[in-house]
């Protein structure tokens, strides 16, 4: 109080002139505060912010990765499915082609077999006919000679002559009956 009066008596102090002690104290105090904030507070806040944003971004990223994986799996499955479809179609086509081929082969084989059997039968028939004709000729000749010799009474022992006569007779018979048949 005494001071105030003294100061008032001396005239008002000039408030615009700074006190050196206050400048120094202000600077030191502020630098101390700055140090505390810079060293301890700000790093902790920044670390917390980083952790928080990482947590959020991590969640988003995880979801994105999962989605991408699902998409990829889907694509793979679709591709595999399409491939399987194409494969089955191809196999079906192949099978059909093969069946056609086999059928054709079998048909050709059967025809050949049939033709062969027919030819064989004809050949056999021909052979049998020729044999029968030959046998009949011999029989007929012998029978005719026997009958003729009995009738004539004469033994026609000469083989060469006998067979020649019969044959000639038969040939003549053939020649006579052939035009009549025709």
């Amino acid at each position: 109080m005494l001071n105030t009066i003294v100061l008032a008596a001396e005239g008002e102090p000039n408030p615009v002139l700074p006190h050196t002690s206050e400048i120094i104290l202000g600077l030191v105090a502020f630098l101390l505060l700055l140090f505390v904030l810079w060293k301890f507070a700000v790093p902790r806040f920044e670390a917390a912010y980083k952790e928080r944003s990482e947590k959020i971004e991590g969640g988003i990223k995880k979801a994105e990765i999962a989605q991408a994986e699902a998409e990829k799996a889907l694509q793979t499955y679709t591709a595999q499915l399409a491939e399987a479809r194409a494969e089955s179609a191809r196999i079906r086509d192949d099978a059909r082609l093969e069946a056609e081929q086999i059928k054709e082969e079998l048909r050709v084989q059967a025809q050949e077999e049939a033709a062969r059997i027919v030819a064989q039968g004809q050949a056999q028939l021909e052979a049998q006919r020729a044999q029968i004709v030959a046998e009949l000729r011999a029989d007929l000749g012998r029978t005719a000679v026997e009958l003729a010799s009995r009738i004539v009474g004469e033994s026609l022992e000469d083989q060469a002559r006998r067979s020649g006569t019969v044959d000639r007779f038969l040939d003549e018979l053939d020649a006579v009956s052939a035009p009549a048949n025709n």
Partner: protein
Amino acid sequence: MRALWLAEGGEFVPPGAGDFFLPPIFGSVTKPMVLIVLSVVIISAFFLLASRRMQIVPGRFQYFAESVYDFGRNNIAREQIGSKDFLPFVPLILALFTFVLVNNIFGIIPIIQFPSFSHIGFPLALSLLVVYPVYHGMGFKRHGFIGYFKHQLFPPNVPKPIYILLTPIELFTKFIMNPITLAIRVFAAMFAGHLILMVFAIAGEFLLIEGSGALKGVSVVAFAFNIAMTFVEALIMVIQAYIFALLSANYIGQAMSSDH
């Protein structure tokens, strides 16, 4: 003290600059000195306690501290310096903002009731010895010695003859006036605001004690104005702290900008 003084004279003495220079509390330690130290303790304790165990999902106290921190970090530092370079300056801007804010708010806290920044020494210490060297230092570091002068004193896209006028003005503004105005702005606001509050308080007191009859009633008006002005002061205190930090960040941002 004031009442005693008034009682002696019996005549109204308006408050003046003398009322800002109270006698030392002990030795040569004055009230603003104690308040400055107290503010450092308060702010440090606030941020250290809030950041002791940081949670991903913040509690109420941590949320409040984060709001203050975000205001300094995003609204001031990042806006003014740019998202590329601002991170190293966050402690500085945050310290400036909270330091000025708490010391200003001291002006309306009961019993304390003294804005320490109404003593010009403190804002001068900040602007002349902290902000000024930092922002010019960053400018020199970023652009080189000659480059920084060119960058600051010869703004581009200006007709050549204009530089005769412009360059001295820029030199005067950027290297002499900026730090002084930065300090004076907050100092003058705090000084004037405190003076206004004192005027209304002392006038009301004087009217109540010395006034006769109906004049005693007028003291109510004075006290009402004191209360109203206290709210206005609270607003101004916050705004001045914001402006101090904002301009500091702005100077740093300008010094480091590459397009200007």
